[in-house]
């Protein structure tokens, strides 16, 4: 992908900050830079997409390059939950609880068609939640069944850009960004 195309993201443009105090914006920049480069994911994989997530974390694709380094098994230590795989009705409350246990600021990546919309199980399945955004707010959607590791990396980069727009002085804007 060309740098120009990568930069071109209308949704993020909406949230671009203008103005602000010189000191505070500098502090923001530093904090956001730090935050965006150490996003720790939760080990959470329900099905097939989880294998691609593992592949992304392993030798060839290695998303440690982006600071998504340490898989955390406990939600209390994680910053981002990558919902990799189908969420069914029985799992939905558990996912909600996991999300609630994470500390702010927290982010959600919906990985794969299932997490985005129900995917292959959209029709005729009596037990699948059609999109994890019915349960928790989602920051980045990554389509694909399963998405390639490159797609996941791209999604993560988008998340990092989103984090970089946050401000500690204007939590209401963070609210828009993080919470929807």
């Amino acid at each position, binding site marked *: 992908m060309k740098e120009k195309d990568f930069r071109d993201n209308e949704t993020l443009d909406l949230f671009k900050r203008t103005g602000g105090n010189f000191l505070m914006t500098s502090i923001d920049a530093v904090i956001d830079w730090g935050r965006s480069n150490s996003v720790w994911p939760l080990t959470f994989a329900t*099905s097939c997409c*989880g294998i691609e997530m593992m592949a992304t974390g*392993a030798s060839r694709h290695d998303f440690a390059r982006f600071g998504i380094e340490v898989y955390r098994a406990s939600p209390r230590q994680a910053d981002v939950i990558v919902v990799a795989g189908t969420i069914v009705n029985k799992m939905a409350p*558990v996912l909600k609880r996991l999300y609630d246990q994470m500390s702010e600021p927290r982010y959600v990546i919906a990985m794969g068609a299932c997490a985005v919309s129900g995917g292959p*199980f959209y029709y*005729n399945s009596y037990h*699948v939640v059609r999109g994890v955004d019915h349960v928790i707010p989602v920051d980045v959607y990554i389509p694909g069944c399963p998405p390639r590791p490159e797609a996941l990396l791209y999604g993560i980069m988008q998340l990092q850009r989103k984090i970089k727009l946050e401000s500690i002085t204007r939590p209401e804007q963070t609210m828009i960004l993080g919470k929807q």
Partner: protein
Amino acid sequence: MKEIINLPVSNIEEEEYHINMGPQHPSTHGVLRLLVSLQGEMVRSLKPHCGYIHRGIEKMCEKDTYPQVIHLTDRIDYLSAHINNHAVCLLVEKALEVDVPERVRYIRTIMDELARIQSHQLWWSSFGMDLGGLTCFFYGLRDREMILDIWEETTGSRFLQSYNCPGGVMQDIHPNFQKKVHAFLKTFKKKIKDYDRILSGNVIFENRSQGVGILSKEDAISYGVTGPSGRGSGWSCDVRKTEPYSMYGKVQFNEVLRYECDTYSRYMVRMQEMHESMNIIEQLIDNIPEGEHSAKMKAVIKLPAGEYFQRVESARGELGLFVVSDGNKTPYRMKFRTPSFSNLSVLDHISRGMKIADLVAIGASLDLVIPDIDR
């Protein structure tokens, strides 16, 4: 506090408490939930709670045509996706009495074996990781990428390819296919020695796995524990041998059996199986006959009314496919007898009296894939 101190010692010992492993737990390989009742550190009993990834695939199959069903079988056991596809195709071909070209059989068998190696590599990675060896994770997945590359070139997808279709395969193999498979075999033969050096001979690993989780042959049969886990108990249950399909009747390979019945023997069976799979691929890869990559099939596939059953050996064990057809283009009832479901049922039995840490090793040695349990 005082009351606790004053309790008689025996009473404290009998105290039983429950812990909840999962649904979100790194060593249950997905969203399995185990309710473990413990006495001290010993597992008294355990209750698996499934259904956290129950997607209703069997109901969906009743609404889908047979070629559509194939795409769903990929998602049941994603690590042996090719083999699951193969089962549906074999069943449809058997019911319609279609003779598939020789070339297709070769391709399918090679793909199946690649899937098996790939699945065992991933199992080895996560097994190592569960027991605390993070290196395994990187080694296993590094080598797995080579197989994914081969698949990607031919089928167009890294995994979940839905490459088989009734009557043949979706498209012909890529011209590079044979070359790449040879390259893979050459490298992996060297790399698999590393696997042995890291885990198989490791003292810590041996201590944690030998004598742990004993599953006798009778129990394996009674619980229906098939595949490498069953063969680790000395039960010769390989469908490739007992009921050969595709090319398995014509190639030479050994059914790997071990008789120690513990976690270590289940581990060794899988390690050996990777060698056997490479052996099978080697016999086939150079002699793929020329010809069509698919037999002529009708545009709409309708099975004659009746009941059909097809067994194949997936990477985890025996996959059975039971179809009741009423003559329509969709199955009337489709049942998947998935290997992991039966393998899970034995977990309670073999982990009783073990330490809680051993439970992780035992669970990993059964190689459970959770969507394969829940469907």
